[in-house]
């Protein structure tokens, strides 16, 4: 089966406080980088997956993202499925 590569970006929903992001923003100022008005920390998850075709791969990755990689109560996710022409076989 063809191998598909994807990246899932998980971020906190805008309404959810991100204390780690705020602490990092404060550290940016101590580094001398001023003017950082927003800094929020999420996760980037690299996935390789075997599937029959791109449509099947997308369906599996969406399930994975929504049910495991992100908690929809507090997080949003976006899926970047690389063009299958660039994926290995």
């Amino acid at each position, binding site marked *: 089966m063809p191998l598909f590569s994807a990246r899932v970006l998980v971020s906190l929903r805008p309404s959810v406080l991100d*204390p780690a992001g705020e602490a990092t923003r404060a550290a940016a100022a101590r580094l001398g980088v001023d003017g950082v008005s927003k800094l929020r920390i999420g996760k980037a998850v690299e996935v390789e997956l075997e599937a029959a075709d791109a449509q099947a791969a997308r369906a599996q990755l969406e399930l994975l993202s929504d049910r495991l990689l992100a*908690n929809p*109560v*507090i997080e949003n996710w976006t899926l970047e499925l690389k063009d299958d022409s660039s994926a290995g076989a």
Partner: protein
Amino acid sequence: MSLGVVVFPGSNCDRDVQWAAEGCLGIQTRFLWHEERDLSGLDAVVIPGGFSYGDYLRCGAIARFAPVLQEVAAFAERGGRVLGICNGFQVLTEMGLLPGALTRNQKLHFICEPTQLRVEPGQCSWLQGYSRGEVVNFPIAHGEGRYQADPELLKQLEDSGQVVLRYCSNPNGSVGNVAGLTNSQGNVLGLMPHPERACDPATGGVDGRRLLASLIG
């Protein structure tokens, strides 16, 4: 009369719960390894504190798929009493047995200290040993205990009397000062503070005894 205590790789309050229940209260307990599927003969199940499966990804996110929790979910569905303490509360929210989520403490620190809680027993049968508005002292020990729910959900939980424990002085930034809540049926209770560490006078107080005692009976 028997209490099941779930044990994941990474649990670290399972023996505290056993000591509080058996040693302090004389309640028989049985450990339930994460691969266990037999819950027969149990009157209630406790999901204890710790770092289940290392809490990788998110607290409780991996534990949710443990075989024992499939059985615990069915047990709760049948009306069985399930108590989630600290990591156990995080697991219950990840499983969807309790609404909302637990997130990083507002000030980032891991907090380990005694806390005062106000009890609002409402209709929750296992808090009937406490009077309305009673202030109790349970320790907390967590880095990710900030309860998060959107305003509509919080209002719904408050209106239905599901917010049964609140911090008197909010240590972690939880919305609505929520320290513990129940499901709508009242048979699943999750809380960040540790009632099992408030059962032996040797460790500073016995306010947690009434909560654990009411798990059985």
